[in-house]
């Protein structure tokens, strides 16, 4: 059963999401990956404002392919989230609550998620052509020199995601596999 949710990801909404939930997400999200996170965290360390409003924001770990003429965006599936683990707690500390990616997270990130009511969503890795269909608007907002890693503001409609880790720290990577193996 898929549940439709609309962003921003308020604390109230975040707390209703549980690991293993399949959701269709509509609303504004931001893209950032390795180099963009590094710059944002360096900006915060210098006491500067971020180029995005982090409050209740959801960040999609993605570096899309260039848009062909007539396309909103190129293929846009998730990248491995673990490389953003060094930055995710800082981003959550200034209000960013949602993360979209794929792959395992460190305990420090899960601790920050419990503290700030964060939610880690999984998009299907390798399904870049399919996921691009849900992206209705894309606007470059900062760090243009980073190319695929630049910060973009996206508007998505019914983006198919799965809650991998919820705000209580429950983890589908552990529970899903255990449940499968238990019934075998």
């Amino acid at each position: 059963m898929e549940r439709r949710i609309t962003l921003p990801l308020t604390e109230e909404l975040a707390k209703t999401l549980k690991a293993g939930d399949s959701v269709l997400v509509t609303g504004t999200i931001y893209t950032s990956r390795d180099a963009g996170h590094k710059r944002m965290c360096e900006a915060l360390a210098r006491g500067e404002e971020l180029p995005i409003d982090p409050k209740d924001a959801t960040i999609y770990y993605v570096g899309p392919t260039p848009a062909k003429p007539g396309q909103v965006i190129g293929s846009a599936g998730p990248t491995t989230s673990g490389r953003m683990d060094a930055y995710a707690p800082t981003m959550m500390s200034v209000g960013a609550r949602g993360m979209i990616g794929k792959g395992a997270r460190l305990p420090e990130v899960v601790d920050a998620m419990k503290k700030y009511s964060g939610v880690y969503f999984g998009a299907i890795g390798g399904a870049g052509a399919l996921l691009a269909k849900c992206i209705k608007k894309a606007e470059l907002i900062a760090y243009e020199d980073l190319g695929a890693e630049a910060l973009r503001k996206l508007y998505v409609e019914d983006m198919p995601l799965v809650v991998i880790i919820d705000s209580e720290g429950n983890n589908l990577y552990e529970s899903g596999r255990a449940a499968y193996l238990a019934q075998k």
Partner: protein
Amino acid sequence: MREINVSQITDVVERLCIEANTHLPSDVKCAIKDCRACEDWDIAKGVLDNIITNFEIADSENVPICQDTGMACVFLEIGQDVHLVGGNLAEAVDEGVRRGYTNGYLRKSVVGDPVRRGNTGDNTPAMLYTEIVPGEEIKVTVGPKGFGSENMSQIRMFKPSAGLQGIKDFILEVVETAGPNPCPPMVIGVGIGGTFDKSALLAKKALMRPIDSENPDPFYADLEKEMLEKVNELGIGPQGFGGKTTAIGLNIETLPTHIAGMPCAVNINCHVTRHKSEVI
């Protein structure tokens, strides 16, 4: 002696970069569909359905299957009776990559220095592998390699006393460690023997072999089947959400090795295992 102008290689590399990134090989598509038919876990079925829809969209709309259009691994099997003319071979291959990744709207994912970073802007250089073979043809294979899975690959120098069991345990350990990170279902390339570097190359070459083929040596063909079954008993499942389909293929390549050693490399690939060849 046959003369081949390197500009022909540029043209072929350009075309193969684009085609490999937009059209998944039929062996991989079939393996994914077969695994979907055998999958018995609900969330896994849903993931596999979306993976199938994804490569169908890429096919029909000529868009990249995955946004990580990879480092361009280019394999050239050059006939020893070929004389290359018209310029530098490596530059010709890089020019093909440059054109393919630019004209094909593919992502430029290469940094010019591993430590100091800095995107080269055109996905060059290619990772170029050349081999001299009999004949007067050139076989060009382009296998774009994504790094979500490349990062989960490992190599180990075993003592010969570790034996076959050591190899089997290592393959499972690498897959277990990779877990959900390399976008399972995976394709697993295993290289055994040779030297430190050659075992890694064998593992990469194993990923270029169609997954509906088998090692010509029945001993290794059986090991491929056995290890694929064992990997699929781990329960990691598509995307790591649990399920039967953790891997859709496992190929093993081997070489003779030294009396003192037994190198083993495991190169992990995702379900977007891309390779496309053409003979000049």
